[in-house]
């Protein structure tokens, strides 16, 4: 059951000209949150902009005694709403609705977990990594970006004990090229007897490419899709993706309640807007 919290901004840490990490006081949402779920944020008071914006729950925050106090959002400025969030100051208040959506299915050992993130697609993985590590699952993050300076927050994962594999398109850090380069190498190296689960979030073409790679290697792969969302609760049918049902028939499926996480084989990639 989602709740709507009038959440105080605890802090807003600018990581670069367009990335920031926004910490929100919303314990009730943090308690209920599962990896891969999201919140709908009202980025300003008033009607400009009118609609809320969806954001993955990045981290769950705890106080010294370990009690959950809130959550963070990894925000990338791309338009009006994300610009307002980037500019938000501590003390401001934002309506925060959540947790919403279908979470990732976290695997247990001996299965291994490989998370593949492109850019701000890193956001859903901090919570997933925490959950996986807590279960003792060996967890790797393939983290790609255009340039080295666009790789943010990797330390969050390293601190958790996640094995991080970097790639940058300009070769500034880790493998040169798309994130699929080190991923394919790693898949080729990995014994088929090892049970692997792939989790992907990033730009649509990247997710599609990873889904193809995963299929080619016969690996199960979950993707977290980012559609424009009007309500986040199944009310408006704006957020549909074409996804196959049990019988393989494609249907417009609401990504806010039947997703945002989908098994990659369900998605009709050709139909996804880029």
């Amino acid at each position, binding site marked *: *059951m989602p709740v709507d919290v009038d959440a105080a901004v605890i802090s807003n840490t600018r990581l670069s000209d367009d990335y920031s990490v926004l910490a929100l006081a919303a314990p009730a949402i943090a308690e209920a949150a599962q990896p891969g779920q999201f919140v709908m944020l009202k980025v300003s008071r008033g009607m400009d902009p009118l609609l809320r914006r969806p954001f993955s729950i990045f981290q769950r925050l705890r106080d010294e005694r370990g009690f959950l106090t809130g959550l963070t959002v990894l925000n990338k400025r791309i338009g009006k709403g994300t610009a307002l969030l980037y500019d938000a100051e501590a003390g401001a208040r934002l309506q925060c609705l959540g947790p919403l959506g279908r979470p990732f299915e976290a695997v247990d050992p001996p299965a291994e977990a490989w998370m593949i993130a492109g850019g701000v697609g890193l956001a859903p993985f901090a919570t997933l990594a925490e959950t996986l590590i807590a279960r003792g699952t060996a967890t790797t993050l393939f983290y790609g970006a255009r340039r080295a300076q666009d790789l943010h927050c990797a330390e969050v994962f390293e601190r958790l004990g996640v094995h991080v594999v970097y790639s940058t398109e300009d070769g500034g850090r880790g493998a040169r090229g798309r994130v699929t380069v080190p991923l394919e190498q790693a898949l080729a190296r990995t014994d088929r007897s090892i049970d692997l689960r792939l989790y992907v979030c990033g730009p649509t073409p990247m997710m599609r490419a990873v889904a193809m790679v995963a299929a080619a290697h016969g690996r199960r792969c979950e993707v977290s899709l980012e559609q424009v969302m*009007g309500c986040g609760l199944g*009310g408006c049918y*704006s*957020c*549909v993706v074409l996804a196959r049902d049990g019988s393989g028939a494609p249907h*417009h499926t609401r990504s806010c309640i039947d997703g945002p996480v989908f098994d990659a084989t369900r998605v009709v990639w050709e139909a996804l*807007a880029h």
Partner: protein
Amino acid sequence: MSVDLSVSLGTLTLSNPLIAASGCFGYGVEYADAVDLSTLGGVAVKGLFLAEREGHPPPRIVETPAGMLNAIGLQGIGVHRFIREKLPELRDRRAVVFVNICGTTIDEYVELARILSDAEGVAAIELNISCPNIKEGGITFGCSLPGTHNVVAAVRKVTRLPIIPKLTPNVTDVASFARAAEDAGADALSLVNTFLAMAIDVDTRRPKLTNIVGGLSGPAIRPIAVRMVYECRQAVKIPIIGMGGISDPEDVLEFMIAGATAVQVGTANFVDPFIWYRLLDGLRAYMARHQLSRLADLTGTLDATSRQQAWISS
């Protein structure tokens, strides 16, 4: 002071005037965990055809100043699956269900009405003759006076359920459509549906919606919708369900004073799914402030005598 929020749409009495607008509240069941459906005056479910429909490819919505465009294309599970899969839960949750129906021919509307009349737990039929997002049917009836009359009259013959045609604002004289619907036997009217509109991505020079055009809803349209309710109030006797941009208690009151008996809330429910509680609180506060014991007494009470004398002529 005990306050009475109930309103009557002909034979149908609602505990309060707030109805979730069709297409903005799924089939109602999506919200059942978050909101107690029985606290709403009613729930208008997503527009249903006889058959299942996949609707338009995304993107289906785009935000605009104080509003949004949608071109969902009436995706839906069809009336049979609705009755089987959704209606029982709505009944259990004690929701007052308005079923919004859409057809491409009069026969389809008639068939839908017939099927729903036999179902248990349907409070009223909202006739969607105003969806701007589909080529066939719907708005072609809603933009023609004989079309409106004929659909309503045909459905009237096959059901005793209250019939509530939903009018489009995309016409020159909405009041004449209200009269046509009343003459044909409508029990109440819903207005307005969305305004046909579009938005363009100037960098790609392509429409922002796959469907090119879509329907404008939200606060942006409220002043036009209020005017239309006011015009229809003077043209017909049957109750009016007003909508278009309602976001605050004052907006509900504005529609009621203009002539609405009940209201629907669509877009604002996306922004705040718990809006119902805020609106009900606001209505109660207004009633207390104005020592109003029956909210229904507000309907159509606009004082339109000139606010001040015109001190000069010409």
